[in-house]
Every structure is written in structure tokens, then in C-alpha cells.
């Protein structure tokens, strides 16, 4: 039995919580005949359809045959895959993303497993990120630095595995996002517009260590005074990342697909977030590590990857408590940062300003074990007003 005209009218005029509207909606979801008729009864359906039909491909504009298309696919993409892989990995705009992965891998290798076999599963150190420190770097230097390693791309492409614990989810409410994430999501009361919630699942970065290859990369990168223990060879190292929730206000394409693809493909334009405010929050990540590890030395290696000289890196590294501090690299030019009082704690405000464009802010802080990152267009006052309205 298909829907009657009257049922369509009830459906389009009724409230979504009305059981009759729900019943009709459920039928409509299953009945393609009724779906085809629905436009006639939707108040603006006929007119909208008429305009949108203009976009349909004309007779001479249709798709080429599947066989031809498949042949093109093989020729254009599959055959070129091997040649392009390294270009793609090291395309300029994605370099920093790979650097992040590399850094995670390096830290994971060094922190987690030197004595694991010796001490079994007993991890004696427990780190929790409690604060941030900013280090300004020149992206050009990083690119040059990493480009000098012929093994680095193999290491990242072949040995590092990224596993997500579930799918990226869009949720309809703050409560649902909190339930999915396992912690209470907070939102800025002063943010305007419709809010979209995305729950990013936890993830695990793992790697089966090929010690000679890793050491070759370390050597090629010119990282001084850094040696990995032989016991690491063949070990699987891993780092677990927590569930995160992003709340987005304004014009933000935060569909799971976009988030999944973001930062992945150098040929695709990034989504336009110029009118989008996002608040991301996640439990402070924890790192297990054995005692007596030269954390400052590992930190210095990390800083050398970011382009510091061994001397600069050693000096900076000694000033940081690496067990509680996450060091965030930001570009040396076009950004400024300062410590600010926000949400009752000390946070870091990073301002980015490109010529002829509105400034953008990134405000980060940690409160009650949760990391918050607020980003959007506007000045420092805008950022702080929003952040201080979080409840």
C-alpha cells in the first residue's frame, strides 16, 4: 500500500516527533514509488526539482562506457601508483602531517620498548600530558631535512600502521557525543549557529621495528647522539590515541568522509574552514614508558627533526619536562603565540595571520585531564570570549 496524498500532507506539515509522521517517514524510507511522488507534495519540491533537473547530463554529456572508464582508471592511476607514491608522500602541503606521524613513530619506538622484553609487561613509568610548549620551526627546513632521507618514506609507507577503533561518527546531540566519547563534552555558550558533532574514534599507531632501517633514517636525518637499543629490533611498538570530540559551528564541512580524507591526498583541495569555529576535546593522552630512559635525549632528537641544530635542541630539551609536556611545532613566520588565562587555567593562544586575510586563532589548554583546542577566525578577544563561555 502506498502513501496517500493526505498522508504526504501530514508528513510534510507534521512534527517529527508525531508518531504518525514517524510511521509515514519509515514507509517513505522503504518505498521508492512513494519517494518518487514525494516532491509533488513537498511545499517547494516541484519548483526545486525543476531547477535541479537542469544539472542532469545531456545526451552528449553522459558517462563513457564502464569498460573504457575502467581502462582509463588502470592507465591513469594504477600504473602510475609506484612512480607517484613518493611524490605523494612528500607533497609539500602534507609534509607536516607525515612529520607528525614520524615523530609519533620515533617517540613510540624510543619510549615504549627498550626494555620491554627484559621487564615483561611491567611498565614502570606513567606519563600524562599536562601542558604544552611551543617551538617555532621553519617548515622549509623540515622539508629539506626529511627530503634528505631516502629511507624515511619507506619507513612511513611500509612499516607504520594506523588503526582506528571504530568509525568516525556524527552525533545529533552533546549528550550522544558524550556517551560515545566516554567523557562529558563541554561547549561554548557564546558560539553562534547550528552545531555539528563529530566523534573521532581512538586509534592505535603501531610499527614492527626494522632496527637497521630506523637507525639508517635517524643517521640520514643527521640526528646527533641518538641510538636505539638493539633489543628493539623486531619489536612491535604502538601508541594509543584517545577518543576525541569535535563540535563545529558555522560553515564547516565536518562530514566523517571529509575528516577521513583530510590531509590525505595532495591532489584534493582542503575543505574551506574560513567561517568555521571548532572546539575539539579529548582526554589527555597517556604514555607508558620504562624508567631511566633518556627522555631529554629523545626530545632533542625530535627537535632536530624539526630543524634545530643539535646544540639548540639539547639546550631547549633540557628546559622541558618531557614527561608532562607536549611540544607543539608551529611555523616560524606568520604566527605568534602567548600564554593566556583561559577556563580557569593557563593556556596557549596561537594567532595566524596571512596578508589580506582575517586572522585565525588556535587556543589550547588542559583542564581536569581533558585537552581542549578551540580554532576559528577572529582575534584574541574573540577566542578568549568563546573559550571562557565553555560550560
Amino acid at each position, binding site marked *: 500500500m502506498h502513501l496517500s496524498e493526505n498522508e504526504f500532507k501530514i*508528513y*510534510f506539515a507534521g512534527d*517529527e516527533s508525531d508518531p504518525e509522521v514517524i510511521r509515514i*517517514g*519509515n514507509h*517513505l*524510507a*522503504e518505498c*521508492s514509488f512513494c*519517494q518518487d511522488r*514525494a*516532491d509533488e507534495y*513537498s*511545499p*517547494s*519540491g516541484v*519548483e*526545486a*526539482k525543476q*531547477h*535541479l*533537473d*537542469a*544539472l*542532469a*547530463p545531456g545526451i552528449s*554529456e*553522459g*558517462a*563513457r562506457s*564502464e*569498460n573504457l*572508464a*575502467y581502462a*582509463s*582508471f588502470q592507465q*591513469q*592511476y*594504477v*600504473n602510475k*601508483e609506484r612512480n607517484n607514491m613518493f611524490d605523494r608522500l612528500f607533497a609539500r602541503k602534507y609534509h607536516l602531517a607525515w612529520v607528525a606521524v614520524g615523530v609519533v613513530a620515533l617517540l613510540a619506538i624510543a619510549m615504549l620498548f627498550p626494555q620491554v622484553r627484559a621487564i615483561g609487561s611491567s611498565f614502570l613509568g606513567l606519563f600524562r600530558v599536562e601542558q604544552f610548549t611551543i617551538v617555532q620551526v621553519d617548515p622549509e627546513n623540515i622539508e629539506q631535512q626529511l627530503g634528505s632521507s631516502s629511507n624515511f618514506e619507506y619507513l612511513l609507507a611500509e612499516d607504520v600502521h594506523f588503526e*582506528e577503533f571504530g*568509525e568516525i*561518527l*556524527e552525533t545529533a546531540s552533546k549528550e550522544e557525543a558524550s556517551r560515545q566519547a566516554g567523557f562529558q563534552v563541554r561547549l561554548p555558550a557564546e558560539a553562534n549557529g*547550528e552545531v555539528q558533532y563529530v566523534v573521532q574514534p581512538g586509534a592505535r599507531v603501531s610499527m614492527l621495528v626494522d632496527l637497521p632501517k630506523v637507525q639508517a633514517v635517524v643517521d640520514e636525518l643527521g640526528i646527533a647522539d641518538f641510538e636505539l637499543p638493539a633489543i628493539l629490533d623486531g619489536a612491535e611498538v604502538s601508541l594509543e590515541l584517545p577518543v576525541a570530540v569535535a563540535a563545529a559551528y558555522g*560553515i564547516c*564541512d565536518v*562530514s*566523517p*568522509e*571529509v575528516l577521513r*580524507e583530510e590531509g*590525505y*591526498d595532495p*591532489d*584534493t*583541495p582542503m*575543505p*574551506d574552514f574560513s567561517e568555521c569555529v571548532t572546539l575539539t576535546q579529548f582526554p589527555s593522552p597517556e604514555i607508558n614508558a620504562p624508567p631511566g630512559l633518556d627522555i631529554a635525549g629523545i626530545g632533542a632528537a625530535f627537535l632536530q627533526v624539526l630543524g634545530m641544530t643539535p646544540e639548540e635542541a639539547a639546550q631547549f630539551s633540557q628546559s622541558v619536562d618531557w614527561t608532562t609536556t607536549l611540544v607543539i611545532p608551529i611555523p616560524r613566520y606568520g604566527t605568534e603565540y602567548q600564554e593566556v588565562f583561559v577556563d580557569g587555567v593557563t593556556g596557549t593562544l596561537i594567532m595566524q595571520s596571512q596578508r589580506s586575510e582575517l586572522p585565525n586563532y588556535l587556543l589550547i589548554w588542559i583542564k581536569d585531564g581533558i585537552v581542549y583546542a578551540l580554532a576559528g577566525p577572529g582575534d584574541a578577544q574573540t577566542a578568549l570570549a568563546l573559550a571562557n563561555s565553555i560550560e
Partner: protein
Amino acid sequence: MTVTAEKINLKGQETSRDFEQIFKEYWSRIYEVAFRLVGDQDEAQDLALETFWRFHRNPPAKRDNLSGWLYRVAVNLGFNALRDKKRRYSYENQAGTNEIEQRSIPQPEQEVILAEERQAVRGVLIEMKPRSAKLLVLRYSGLTYAEIAGALNINPSSVGKLLARAHDEFKVLYSQIQGG
């Protein structure tokens, strides 16, 4: 050349024959979604190929919503391309090059009218809320409510209501844009 199963390596779940079958099954519909957004055959084909390339290289972990995944990637790529076009068009308009180009290509009246209508409709889509615009593009590309729900991660029983709201939003914006 045949794509080997090892090469495709769809997380060990599909063979090259499976991939080819999926490609051929969805090819024309993915192309149509892309074409509706960019209005150019070559560009639409590139976007459709790109969609399958992403599937080939980094397929979704779960296979119960394969079509939704493909449509979602295609419509996102299409909107990205449309936004880029809008920016380019704006720059070219500022520079006056677009006007010169348009004057130099004579077209039959019907084609001109269709081209103007398509431009207006795409202009409205780019101004709409992204989800509403995607709903309309996917629906009029021939997707069922269930397919749309799978592509946009929404409840199938809400699609009708959301489409009606999208119709209203489209109508208002179209009138505003056409009214100057």
C-alpha cells in the same frame, strides 16, 4: 594490464575481479553525481576516477555501506571542485577575462539559457548548508532515500523531511539570487 589482487589489496577482502565489478557497477552513477556539480565531462570523469582511486587505495573498513561511501566521496569531491570553480570565476570576473571569454564563444540560445540556469543552480547549491545541498544533488542523481542516508550518515526515515527543508532553502536562495 590487469590489476592484480595483491595490488588492489582491499584489506584482503576483495579480489581484483571484485574491484572491477564494483567499479563498473557504480561508475555511471558516480560520474553523474560529479557531473551535476561541475558540469564538465572531463572534470566529472576525473572526479569519478578519483573516487574509485580512493576506494582502491584506502577502502572503508566496513563493507556494509559501500555505495554510501562511494557517493559520499564523490559528492564531497564535487563540492570541493565547485567551490574552487567559484573562487576562480570570481578572480576571472575581477580580472575581466571571463567576460572576454564568454563574448568570444557564440552559442545557440537554448544552450545559453541552459548554461545560465545551471550556473544559477550551482550558485544556489554553493550557498546552501552543505548537507542540504548534498541531499539535493544525490536525490536528483537518482539515489533512493536509503542510499542518501548511507551516503550522508542520516536516518533513512528523516530523509524525506530533510529533503523538504532543502527544497525550501533552495527555493528561497534561488529567488534571492535571481532577484539580484
